[in-house]
């Protein structure tokens, strides 16, 4: 993904965008969303996981979760359900809506990055592409999503 991005941005884009035909521009912009999004998403992902993670958030984030979801348990249940239900490849997100000052759970398809796609600020993302879990959990995506809560770095998320 990172390998694909510079090649596209460095050469084809500069060259092709100036030609003016829509079709190379569209396929290049698709490549940017896919590979750029993949780079953004995974860069976030590594930071929100930790071998010493797990448990629950504290302070402001905990209060906000209670405010917007009722309880941490309700938030967790919702997040697991929504992330597991992604059709095909994608991500489950806890995002911050700056306009409404509320937390939201949303999902995105493929490598569509959260902020560029929805305007929400990504706080926590769960990769539910099959490559993220298949070798260990096989087809049991919901089990993987539930277990990932054991390694969420709530300090980073907060």
């Amino acid at each position, binding site marked *: 993904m990172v390998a694909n991005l510079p090649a596209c941005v460095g050469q084809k884009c500069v060259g092709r965008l100036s030609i003016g035909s829509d079709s190379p521009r569209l396929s290049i912009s*698709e490549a940017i969303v896919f590979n750029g999004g993949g780079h953004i998403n995974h860069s976030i992902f590594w930071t929100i996981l930790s071998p010493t993670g797990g448990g629950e958030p504290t302070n402001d984030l905990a209060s906000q979760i209670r405010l917007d979801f009722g309880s941490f348990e309700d938030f967790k249940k919702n997040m697991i359900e929504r992330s597991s239900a992604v059709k095909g*490849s994608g991500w489950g997100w806890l995002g911050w809506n700056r306009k409404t000052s509320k937390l939201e759970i949303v999902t995105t398809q493929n490598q569509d990055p959260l902020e560029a796609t929805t305007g929400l600020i990504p706080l926590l993302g769960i990769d539910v592409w099959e490559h993220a879990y298949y070798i260990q959990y096989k087809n049991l995506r919901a089990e993987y999503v539930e277990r990932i809560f054991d390694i969420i770095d709530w300090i980073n998320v907060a």
Partner: protein
Amino acid sequence: MMRTRVLSVLGRRTKATLPELPYEYHALEPYISADIMELHHSKHHATYVNNLNVANEALQEASSKGDVTKCVQLANAIKFNGGGHVNHTIFWQNMSPNGGGEPEGPLAEAIQRDFGSFAAFQAKMSQATVAVQGSGWGWLGYNKEAGRLQVATCANQDPLEATTGLIPIIGIDVWEHAYYLQYKNVRPDYVNQFWNVANWEDAGSRFSAASA
């Protein structure tokens, strides 16, 4: 008692069922592992079948109550699970332990005519299939209107015919579950090896039926 029985028969919908594989789980080795085949058929395809039946039951109920909103809400689940059922049912037949090589007869002639050569077709389909972003399928399909074969790809479980109008001839599943345990992230290797199990007899029958 007779009346109850008749009414229950009339009320019963035809449920989707998981088709049996025409071969053992290990039969496509070394090209596709037994582990993959077993999970793919008995878990993934089975889940599409179950969820399709659930969605169809809910649709029948919503429809009989005139709840159009609910019907529309169920459309996604039916497309996803129905598509998954359709796609995989074709897929198991599209592969064979005696597969590989090249097609013969009318399909071979059509490939020659529409792609220039079998090698050119294979390269085109492999490239398009590998390039699918995310989950999806690569297809050789028949365009009835134009009387031509075409390579196409579909996202997720969107079924070829319902989505594009093309009649499916042969397809390659490139959801990661179709290859990850064996090929890891190297999707091109999997797609290249798929040709060793391609069932040209089945593809030929589909082509004959589609182009009749």
